């Protein structure tokens, strides 16, 4: 095993429509916040991992080149890592392995997106192949809807019950976002608002789906030995996992979703977690879409297959439930996509170090963070804890 690795600082921009600043300025805002949080200077950094979802979103290729100045890391290695929507988790994983390998002591990890500069759904279709799928591409909501339909059919989930549970998830995420000063969408909504919102892709409605946001997130990783010196309360990386299905959507069973299930299992095994529902104190699940959040609960072993709506309706995953999920308001309220997965990790780290402000889950010691990418193809999980 490699060296133990901890998160010693995080920084986020205010997420939302940030048309008043240029992309490099947005990145710098998150990086400056992370330096301030960690109490270190840019000189203390040995290397950088940086990434967006795709370059096509903003029409600028290999952004580590144009952001070298904004990251304040000229003369250092800047590795660009990307895996679609799961980019944020993949960035964190690279930061972890870099430090664990012993080749660097302190690594700055930055995820960023200015989704409102491009056309997000048109960009998503450029993930599909030109031979077979591009013609029928339905954007992200279309993919998520197909998966939800398959899941309901497979487990004979009552459509009305799923609808009620999904609406409750939306309401509780929106409520949570009101406690998060960085969140994009901050408004109080009701179950009826969700159920009466405009249909996007049947049965999915507007309030079931995340927004497009501009935003960036920076997380600083440090090796054991250095981490405790630099930071009074580091968040230790306890486990991580990443898996990908086949490229062609139709080749794997998305209702049981092997990549999500195995990625979580890999992380649990490394962290020594056997019963995640009781052992975890908080989870930051990547939830661009309400129905999909329920599939994640099942894949992550938080409830039996097909029973997520029942658990949701009992309040298992609300802020005062057995396992609070997305006290930050989640992806559903904030989605600068290349940063989103890293925001999940940053929020998990804030929770286990007691720094989450109004969104703090009391006494949280062990937290799961997650992101998903591709046309339902990739899942990445990172677990952080307050104890080494």
């Amino acid at each position, binding site marked *: 095993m490699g060296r133990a690795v901890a998160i010693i600082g995080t920084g986020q921009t205010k997420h939302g429509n940030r048309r008043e600043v240029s992309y490099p300025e947005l990145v710098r805002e998150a990086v400056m916040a992370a330096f301030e949080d960690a109490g270190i200077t840019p000189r203390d950094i040995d290397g950088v991992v940086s990434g967006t979802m795709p370059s096509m979103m903003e029409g600028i290729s290999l952004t580590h080149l144009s952001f070298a100045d904004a990251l304040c890391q000229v003369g250092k290695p800047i590795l660009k890592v990307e895996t679609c929507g799961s980019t944020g988790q993949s960035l964190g994983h690279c930061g972890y392995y870099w430090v664990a390998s012993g080749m660097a002591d302190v690594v700055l990890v930055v995820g960023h997106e200015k989704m409102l500069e491009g*056309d997000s759904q048109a960009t998503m279709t450029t993930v599909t192949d030109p031979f077979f799928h591009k013609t029928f591409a339905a954007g992200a909501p279309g993919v998520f809807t197909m998966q939800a339909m398959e899941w309901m059919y497979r487990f004979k989930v009552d459509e009305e019950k799923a609808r009620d549970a999904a609406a409750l998830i939306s309401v509780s995420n929106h409520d949570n976002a009101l406690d998060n000063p960085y969140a994009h969408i901050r408004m109080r909504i009701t179950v009826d608002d969700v159920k009466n919102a405009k249909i996007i892709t049947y049965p999915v409605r507007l309030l079931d789906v995340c927004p497009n946001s501009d935003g960036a997130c920076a997380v600083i990783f440090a090796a054991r030995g250095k981490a405790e010196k630099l930071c009074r309360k580091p968040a230790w990386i306890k486990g991580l996992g990443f898996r990908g299905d086949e490229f062609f959507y139709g080749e794997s069973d998305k209702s049981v979703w092997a990549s999500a299930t195995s990625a979580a299992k890999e992380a649990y095994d490394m962290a020594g977690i056997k019963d995640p529902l009781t052992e975890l104190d908080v989870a930051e699940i990547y939830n661009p879409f309400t129905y999909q959040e329920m599939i994640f609960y099942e894949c992550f072993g938080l409830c039996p297959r097909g029973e997520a709506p029942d658990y949701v309706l009992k309040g298992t995953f609300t802020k005062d439930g057995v396992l609070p999920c997305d006290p930050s308001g989640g992806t559903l309220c904030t989605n600068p996509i290349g940063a989103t997965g890293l925001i999940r990790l940053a929020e998990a780290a804030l929770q286990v170090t007691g720094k989450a402000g109004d969104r703090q889950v009391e006494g949280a010691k062990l937290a799961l963070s997650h992101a998903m990418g591709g046309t339902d193809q990739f899942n990445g999980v990172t677990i952080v804890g307050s104890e080494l």
Partner: protein
Amino acid sequence: MSKEYRTMNNDVALPYRWSLGPVWTRFFDGLKEETIYGTKCLKCNRVLVPARPFCPACYAEMEEWVEIGGQGTVQSWTVVNNSYYGQVKEPPYVMALIRLDGTDCALCHFIGGIDVSSIEKVRERIQVGTRVKVKWNAEKKASIYDIAYFEPAG
């Protein structure tokens, strides 16, 4: 299809709205008024052009604005003679790094107002160290093209 084996065209086209931010908005507004703005770093005292929100070396905000004159020296230049998809200008044309008087970096722009029909003719007018001055476009759109090109000053 241009190839002897089977291919498909896959054209990727997308629309963008790129944010200039306050500093570059002001820089381009300056061009519209025929003024080139740089910013000065109060830490390292360098003047950079185009204006920057922060100093790339010191990472500090660059809040002091400096008006730059339209004259400078050619640091390097090239006659672009090849064609590629999406090229900004019909070749041949001259691109150059120009160190404007009173600045501490080079600005990249075109050199014009000279005969570019042969490399020899360009060499007669342009060398490393040649003095050049800005030539403004009559029609301005608050973009980098408000500067039409730089031309020999002598």
